[in-house]
Every structure is written in C-alpha cells, then in structure tokens.
C-alpha cells in the first residue's frame, strides 16, 4: 500500500447507515404468529423477562363455535397486517404475495360467516354475511374495548 492509497478519502457510504433487507423465511402458523407478534421467526426477538409462552386467544378448548371463529379472524387478520408491511418493502416476493392473497380470501369468508352467526365486524360483512337481514346490524355485539369476546 503506498502512502497516497492510505489517505484516499472516499465519501461513499460514510455518514449513512445500512439495514439488511429481510429475506423470506417460512412463517409461523397463524396461532403462534399472533402470540409472537410477528409471522416471521427471524424477527421474533424475545425480551429475557417475557419468555413465558402465552396466548390470549388460543388453546382454550372451552371456546364456543362463535369464539373459535373470532379467534380465526384475529389470527388471519394479523397475518395480513404483518404481510402488508413486508410487502410494502418487498412487493415482488412471490411467496409473500401468494400467502397474502390466500389470507385475504380466507378473511373475507370468515367475516361473512361471523356476521351470519354472531354480528358484523365490518360494514361490508353486513351484506356479505346477512344479505337478507332487515335490521341495521352495525350496533349489534359488544364494543371491542369491553373485552367481552375473545
């Protein structure tokens, strides 16, 4: 190395950070994902004082059919939430896109079924789930913050 090389000043990449782009990793099942707060095992970085395995919605055998349906809505919708952010920065990822569309379809069906058997969670599901209903529907069921259903 000569002296002129050693003091060459290249400004390129200085004063700027770099983040590695996430690569696709096989996602958790949707039940685990909701408990972990992400569908991606590679982004599940636990805190040492919060390692207990618990899930507020899952693994309860006494759930009614209605609550089981709602649990599925929580899980599928969260999968969509996490995939949305992933696809915002990885719009060309085929695996991500295919799972995203699969979950969107599933969610549409679940919301319609829940509107039919319980009450509508979205206004769209008033017409997809209970097209013959004559009542308003939107005021049915508990308010979400009451914790009445999960």
């Amino acid at each position, binding site marked *: 190395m000569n002296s002129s090389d050693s003091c060459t000043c290249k400004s390129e990449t200085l004063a700027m950070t770099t983040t590695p782009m996430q690569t696709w990793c096989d996602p958790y099942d949707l039940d685990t994902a909701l408990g972990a707060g992400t569908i991606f095992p590679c982004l599940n970085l636990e805190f040492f004082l919060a390692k207990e395995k618990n899930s507020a919605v899952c693994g309860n055998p006494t759930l009614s059919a209605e609550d089981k349906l709602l649990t599925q809505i929580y899980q599928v919708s969260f999968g969509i939430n996490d995939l949305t952010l992933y696809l915002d920065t990885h719009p060309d990822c085929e695996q991500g896109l295919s799972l995203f569309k699969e979950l969107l379809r599933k969610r549409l069906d679940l919301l319609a079924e829940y509107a039919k058997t319980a009450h509508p*969670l979205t206004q769209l599901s008033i017409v997809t789930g209970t097209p013959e209903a004559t009542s308003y529907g939107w005021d049915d069921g508990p308010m*979400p913050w009451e*914790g009445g259903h999960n």
Partner: protein
Amino acid sequence: MWSYEKRLQYPVKINKTCPKTAQLIISQYGGPDGELSASMRYLAQRYSMPVKKVGGLLTDIGTEEINHMEIICAMVYQLTRNLTPEQAKTAGFDAYYIDHTSGLWPQAAAGVPFTALEFQSKGDAFADLYEDLAAEQKARTVYENLLRVIEDPDVRAPLKFLRAREIVHFQRFGEALEMTKEKLDSKNFYYFNPEFDKALLQKP
C-alpha cells in the same frame, strides 16, 4: 380514508382492576413514545415522502399504530372500569381520578399531557426516517420497562405483542431507508433534500 372494524388487533380481556397498572400503561396512549404520537408522526410525514412506497409504508404503519392506541386504551379502561372510591383514593390513581374520573385522556405516566411536541415531521426523508427508527426503539424500551414491573398475565400478553411490533416496524423503516437511498446518489446522500428540491430527484 379509514373505516372501523369492531374488534381490536390483539384481544384484551383483563379481569382484575388495577389503577396503578393503568397509570403506568397510559403512557403508551399519550406519553412521549406512545401510540398516539407514533400514529400522528407517521401519518403526518407520509404526504411529502419522495419515494411512493415509503409513503405507503408510513400509511400502513401509522394505521397499525392507531390499532395499538386502541389496544392501550382498552387496557386502561378495563383496568379502571370497576374502580371503587377507596381504590381511587389509595391506589396511585388519585390525581388522574380528580381530573378525569375513569375516563380516557391521553397523558404520560407522569401526568404530562399529550403534545405534538413529542414528534417531528421535518420534511426531509432521512431526518424523518431516522426519527421513526428511534421512535420504535424508544417505544420498545417503554414496553420492556412495563414488562419488568407488571405481573398480571392478562396485561403482559398484549404488552408483549406490542413490543414485538416495535421491532418489526424498526426493520421496515430500515428497509424504507434503503429504498430512499436507491433513489439518490450514494456519493453524497445529502446533496439536496429530496422532499423539497424535487427537480433534482431522479424520476422513478
């Protein structure tokens, strides 16, 4: 625009009244690194972002932060909805009770009201994205501080969920930074402000 879905992003079902816990958790509603600040920060910054996909990400994360604000509010509500006059007096919630009874109002744990001074919208993509990265880290710290002192498993489960989301958002903002860098000359990322000196930005 937004439309409402009648459920929380993560279920909250807390049976045990605990005004002290409510008084700590309320910081993630109206505190300096709270969810209200987070949503307002991202939803304010997105309009002038020079990279369309980054504006999209800010919209989606800002929307998720509104969901998180609702989770925190539901927790505070459920922790205090059956508050007795005796608990109001003695359980560390007295000052809040005098001003708000058991209604919800955005403030920090130490009583400082929510203010837009807690976040920035600088009109400069790098400055804003670094603010966003820092915001996610600070919120993660708050959730860890809460997890250190709160024992009720009904309260811990949603707190753990919210902490995990901060880490995912941090990764996505880092990726947004990479997407912004791609549009600029790596020899000098600071030659101009891509949100203001738009004529100098390479068209995508």
